[in-house]
């Protein structure tokens, strides 16, 4: 015996099991070999031969592999009957993955449909997430955005009209910077401002921001080329004619020229040297719209529009926004408290310009959107919720597919259970399969999402493409898609896996393949999923319909001025180096010459673009000056030339238009709208009353009252507006309004030509028709509605496919029953009806839930809708009808095929 023991021990060296157990196993194997040896010698083999054969017949490598597993499992009945062969976790995983891949390959149709369904769901999610990630989660590519705060001034006492955030003047900003300790660095920038750039021959309208020298350093970003501003370029006004280009502008306007540094360009007729290019993706701090270039604050006078030229020395010109990095350990409330103290002392020292002003700090992440933040967040949240539901529908569809397939695989699963596979192990295997499927859908979906978000982004207005935020597909999007894919796989896989593995071995093996009874419960689960799908689809369709109707209404909104026969040209004569006299001469000459262009019925100048109008706070109304202490009057202020009201078709309520008599030396006059009249002179005649512009020196006499129009958004609540005549109020950049007799775009070239004839140094790039203005105002809403529609239809399509699949499956399951019914005399019609009724019951119960949900959701959405109530019956009805129609078709097809069951064939099959 001992000869065997030693030989085996030698061959099983490195067997990792407890020594007692090892000794026992070796004893047993030795006993086996002795038996074999004796048998061989009995058969006549020599002792040597028998010994050699006995030893060599054993595959020791296999034994070494197999034995540890049998020991590691431990004894006792705690291991479920039929527990699986358990190798290491990863070995099992690889086996499972291979097996799963083979199963998926074996049923290519199922795999394709399931993966595609998931891809649509995951793709929609990825696309929306990409946009949300770009716009909301990581809006600015700056260092540690959580430490950065935006600093603005605001009214100390907020009223409904004047709660808006305002800029801060350069001098105030400097005082805050010098007196507070909460910031490790405090910088300032202006909003993007239009400026005329001459790089080669042609002048171009571009956007710039005036920033303090420490701006880039505060944000912690680094130039992609060259350098940013030096401290020495931030000390003496007018001495630093240098400029930093934005990356997109460098690429788009200078072809990415690597030798760009040192080149001179003219901005507003002043030569500037390009010293650097900003990092890729950085477009200023206003996340929606960014500048093409940055100019140091010391050059403010050269580049800011007339009236803001003294921005560096006049405390009342508040064109800057502060941005600061909090010093280590300083919190926002702490910094805010300190800023309040500084604001109070500034108010005392400079009451003229600072009375009633407070300083407001906000996290930069919040400030990055200005007023667009709320709608963006709402829109983003809504879209994310919607695509989330689309994904859930996709999941439940695939779950249904898996359930249907699971019954086809019952036999396979039962055999595996019978052969000793454990339930946990089976579930793991099935989940591996569904996660693999999820990943497959995830990869496809990621690609679809990438394409989709690109496509979506390409729809943004082309004229501002360089200035709008760029879409970033970064790591977080990938992680999102991956997590979505794995979660999806688990979600749609878990129920079918649990169900399948509960399969009772003996029942299934006894059961004949076509028996229907046992699959009742899985049909009812499928029905529940289907009803939920129908409900969610209906809700999505209703939401899409509501917004579609709302935007339709918005298109028919009367903005209060002519749009169809209106052409607009933005001109900045001041930026071409014109002085006041020459600019005024230009306005006059242009009017005269362009009026001769055929097809033009009237024209005028105005400082504001329709729906992009500027609102000013601090209007003083004579006799109501005490308001100044408590609340300030704010109004849209528009500088207009003669014929403005007739060109735009704005009607007079009373009084007169501006005339040639309203010149430099005559009484300063103004025209107000009826909203302002009713607000500040209720039950009085405003004609002859007087008011003062913010920071104005003289009182203006009201000579006319006109109808209120829309000034900032379509369908906005009425706002106060006041018009002042161009001849009394100089402005160095104006918009030319042309009323035409036919399609306004046809006169673009002629007007452009006339302006070039007057001065070729003036850029006339920005021309729009009135209709385009409306389109642009509705652009965001249109994109939103488009997306809602697409996702709504996607949901409907997925639900229809799911419905069809389940109905077809159930008809197939009941083929025998149907055969019996028909054999017993049921007609084709009654069989169709039976199936149809079964399907439509599910659909109708889903719809009932959907209607309830849609009504509830409608209440929440009501305040985002224009001219449509949240419970709009047309939207609800249309959505319900569409869904009903599609669902009917999806049920009818299987019903028809049921009615064509040949009873003989069906019965013979059993």
């Amino acid at each position, binding site marked *: *015996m001992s000869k065997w023991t030693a030989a085996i021990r030698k061959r099983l060296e490195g067997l990792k099991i407890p020594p007692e157990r090892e000794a026992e*196993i070796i*004893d*047993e*194997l030795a*006993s*086996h070999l*002795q*038996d*074999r040896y004796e048998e061989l010698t009995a058969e006549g083999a020599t002792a040597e031969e028998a010994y050699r054969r006995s030893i060599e*017949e*054993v*595959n*020791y*490598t*296999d*034994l070494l592999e*197999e*034995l540890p*597993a*049998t*020991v590691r*499992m*431990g*004894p*006792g*009945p705690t*291991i479920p*009957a039929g*527990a*699986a*062969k358990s190798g290491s976790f990863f070995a099992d995983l690889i*086996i*499972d993955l*291979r*097996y799963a891949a*083979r199963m998926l390959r074996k049923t290519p149709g199922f795999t394709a449909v399931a993966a595609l369904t998931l891809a649509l769901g995951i793709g929609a999610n990825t696309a929306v997430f990409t946009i949300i990630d770009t716009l909301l989660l990581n809006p600015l590519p700056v260092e540690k955005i959580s430490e950065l705060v935006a600093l603005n001034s605001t009214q100390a006492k907020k009223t409904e009209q004047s709660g808006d955030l305002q800029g801060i003047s350069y001098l105030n900003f400097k005082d805050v910077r010098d007196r507070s300790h909460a910031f490790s660095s405090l910088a300032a920038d202006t909003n993007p401002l239009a400026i005329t750039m001459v790089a080669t021959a042609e002048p171009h309208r571009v956007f710039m921001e005036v920033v303090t020298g420490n701006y880039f350093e505060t944000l912690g970003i680094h130039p992609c080329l060259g350098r940013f501003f030096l401290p020495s370029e931030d000390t003496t006004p007018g001495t630093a004619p240098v400029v930093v280009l934005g990356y997109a502008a460098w690429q788009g306007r200078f072809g990415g020229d690597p030798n760009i540094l040192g080149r001179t360009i003219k901005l507003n007729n002043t030569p500037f040297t390009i010293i650097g290019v900003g990092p890729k993706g950085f477009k200023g701090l206003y996340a929606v719209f960014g500048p093409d270039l940055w100019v140091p604050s010391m050059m403010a006078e050269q580049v800011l529009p007339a009236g803001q030229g003294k921005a560096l020395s006049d405390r009342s010109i508040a064109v800057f926004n502060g941005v600061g990095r909090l010093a280590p350990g300083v919190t926002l409330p702490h910094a805010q408290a300190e800023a309040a103290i500084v604001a109070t002392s500034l108010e005392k020292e400079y009451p003229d310009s600072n009375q009633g002003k407070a300083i407001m700090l906000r996290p930069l992440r919040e400030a990055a959107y200005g007023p667009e933040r709320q709608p963006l967040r709402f829109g983003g949240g809504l879209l994310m919720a919607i695509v989330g539901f689309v994904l859930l529908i996709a999941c439940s569809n695939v779950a249904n597919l898996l359930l249907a397939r699971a019954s086809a695989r019952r*036999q*396979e699963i*039962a*055999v*595996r259970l*019978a*052969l*000793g*596979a454990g339930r946990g192990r089976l579930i793991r*295997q099935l989940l591996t399969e569904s996660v693999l499927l999820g990943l497959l859908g995830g990869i496809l979906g990621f690609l679809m999402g990438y394409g989709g978000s690109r496509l979506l982004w390409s729809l943004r207005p082309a004229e501002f493409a360089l200035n709008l935020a760029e879409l970033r597909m970064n790591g977080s999007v990938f992680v999102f898609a991956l997590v979505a894919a794995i979660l999806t796989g688990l979600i749609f896989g878990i129920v079918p896996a649990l169900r399948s593995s509960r399969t009772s*071995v*003996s029942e299934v*093996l*006894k059961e004949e393949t076509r028996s229907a009874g046992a699959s009742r419960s899985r049909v009812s689960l499928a029905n529940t999923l289907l009803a939920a799908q129908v409900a969610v689809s209906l809700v999505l369709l209703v939401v899409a319909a509501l917004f579609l109707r709302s935007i339709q209404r918005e298109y028919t909104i009367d903005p209060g001025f002519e749009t169809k026969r209106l052409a607009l040209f933005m001109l900045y004569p001041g930026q071409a180096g014109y002085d006041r006299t020459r600019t005024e001469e230009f306005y006059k000459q242009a009017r005269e010459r362009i009026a001769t262009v055929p097809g033009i019925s009237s024209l005028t100048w105005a400082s504001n673009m329709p729906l992009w109008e500027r609102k000013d706070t601090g209007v003083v109304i004579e006799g109501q000056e005490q308001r100044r202490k408590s609340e300030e009057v704010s109004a849209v202020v528009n500088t207009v030339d003669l014929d403005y009201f007739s060109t735009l078709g704005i009607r007079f309520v009373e009084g007169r238009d501006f005339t040639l008599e309203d010149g430099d030396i005559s009484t300063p006059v103004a025209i107000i709208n009826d909203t302002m009249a009713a607000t500040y002179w209720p039950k009085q005649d405003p004609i002859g009353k007087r008011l003062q512009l913010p920071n104005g020196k003289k009182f203006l006499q009201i000579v006319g009252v006109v109808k209120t129009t829309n000034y900032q958004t379509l369908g906005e609540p009425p706002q106060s507006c006041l018009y002042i005549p161009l001849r009394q109020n100089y402005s160095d950049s104006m918009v030319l309004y042309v009323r035409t007799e036919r399609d306004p775009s046809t006169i673009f070239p002629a007007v452009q030509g006339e302006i070039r004839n007057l001065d070729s140094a003036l850029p006339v790039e920005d021309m729009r028709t009135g209709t385009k203005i409306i389109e642009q105002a509705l652009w965001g809403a249109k994109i939103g509605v488009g997306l809602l529609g697409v996702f709504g239809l996607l949901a409907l399509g997925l639900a229809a496919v799911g419905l069809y699949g389940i109905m077809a499956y159930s008809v197939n399951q009941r083929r025998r029953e149907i055969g019996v019914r028909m054999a017993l005399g049921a007609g084709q019609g009654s069989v169709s009806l039976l199936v149809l009724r079964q399907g439509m019951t599910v659909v109708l119960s889903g719809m009932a839930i959907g209607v309830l949900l849609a009504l509830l959701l409608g209440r929440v959405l009501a305040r985002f809708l224009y001219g449509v109530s949240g419970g709009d019956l047309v939207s609800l009805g249309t959505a319900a009808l569409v869904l009903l129609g599609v669902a009917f078709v999806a049920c009818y097809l299987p019903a028809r095929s049921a009615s064509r069951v040949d009873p003989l064939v069906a019965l013979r099959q059993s």
Partner: protein
Amino acid sequence: MESSVEHEWKKGSAELLILSLVEDQPRHGYDIGKLIERRSEGKLHFHVASLYPLLYRLENRGWIQGRWVEKPNQRRRRYYRLTGQGQKVLAQQRRSWRQFVDAVGRVTGVEHV
């Protein structure tokens, strides 16, 4: 590497074979291997490297129990006997196997005797 179904298939039937052999009397490993070979007329053959690990597994699950026994005029050997739980499993596996073979027979048209 064989697929997990094939693997489980073989393993499953092997379990059934072993459980059946120790049903009426305790047997030692060599005896079990020999009996399988003899009764299947050489069609089934169990290697040492798979037979003993399988025996240990079945033992771990509590379906069979091994015990060293020294019979007169014989060497000390490890005999395996079927446990109560093993009897239940065996009955169930026999049933499943029967049904499985029936099902396969119906599907493939190969009649069994």
